[in-house]
């Protein structure tokens, strides 16, 4: 079934994995199993970190570092202290996206969950609902649309041009780019690693020496993809925080 990445799967299984069990909308394939694994890992991480020892050690240490990072480097920089209410949400988002991404470089798993559109799309839908809800709650329906469509400091005549662009930005470009950025980055990384791995293997079986350069590049790209995994989780989270912050305090 090629669920473990112990040999090269057929090229069609790079993204579209066959069903393992179930059928129809309940079909379970490798990606679904990995999503469950990601949920379990994130839950385990949080429960293991709940001990609350005064001198942290082990998992608690790591968890406190992550919370500190979300709090100081993401929320306080973009939303301010009012945004601390959203720490658990952003923390879960960051941890889940990161675990889903890092599956890309873990041996025998080798499949980023976020390289399928379903998960980024669903998370973006949640973020979309949250920032519009917050905007309406903090500024009122009329005030929210006014600050969205008529940003202050623009000459009156330009509103003909600015208002439609702002409308498209809030309702179309923001969610689309948020979802597509995560999805496309992980898909591109996965395809890149698969291409170089296949190239290296093919060159190794034909000419041993020819595989040196692609093999070295493959190792370097693994390191790069670890960076991309962290960075994409960070960017998704910080953009969510920026959108939440923008909905809570409009520009004056």
């Amino acid at each position, binding site marked *: 079934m090629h669920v473990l990445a112990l040999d090269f799967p057929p090229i069609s299984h790079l993204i579209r994995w066959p069903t393992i069990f179930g059928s129809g909308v309940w079909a379970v394939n490798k990606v679904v199993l990995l999503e469950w694994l990601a949920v379990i890992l994130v839950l385990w991480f949080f429960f293991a970190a709940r001990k609350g020892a005064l001198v942290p050690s082990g998992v608690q240490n790591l968890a406190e570092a992550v919370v500190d990072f979300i709090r100081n480097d993401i929320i306080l920089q973009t939303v301010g202290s009012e945004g601390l209410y959203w720490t658990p949400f952003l923390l879960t988002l960051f941890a889940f996206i990161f675990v889903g991404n890092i599956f890309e470089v873990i041996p025998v798993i080798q499949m980023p969950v976020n390289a399928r559109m379903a998960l980024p799309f669903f998370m973006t839908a949640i973020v979309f609902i949250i920032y519009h809800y917050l905007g309406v709650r903090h500024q009122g329906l009329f005030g929210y649309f006014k600050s969205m469509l008529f940003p202050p400091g623009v000459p009156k005549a330009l509103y003909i041009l600015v208002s439609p662009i702002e409308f498209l930005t809030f309702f179309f470009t923001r969610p689309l*780019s948020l979802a597509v950025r995560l999805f*496309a*980055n992980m898909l591109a990384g996965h395809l890149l690693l698969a291409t170089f791995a296949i190239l290296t293997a093919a060159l190794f079986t034909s000419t041993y020496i020819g595989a040196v350069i692609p093999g070295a590049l493959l190792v370097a790209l693994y390191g790069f993809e670890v960076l991309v995994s962290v960075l994409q989780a960070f960017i998704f989270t910080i953009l969510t925080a920026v959108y939440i912050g923008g909905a809570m305090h409009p520009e004056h």
Partner: protein
Amino acid sequence: MHVLLAQNPGELQAGLTAVGRGIVYGGAAIGPGIGIGIVVGNAITAMARQPEAAGVARTTMFLGIAFTEALALFGFVLAFIISG
């Protein structure tokens, strides 16, 4: 072209689709390539001038890269969506 089309329409279409994909992704990568260069260059200038503000500059740089990069990624996805 006419001869090819008469002999083998499917092959011509597949070839033109591949060319179109290349053009779409290549075209989509031009602007963001220049844009990311400008963003990172200016962020480095800012960090070099004020090392104590490097943290803020780095966060903002990643945000700027993310916004700029989105256009290239749209092109990447569009290249996959195009089918013959």
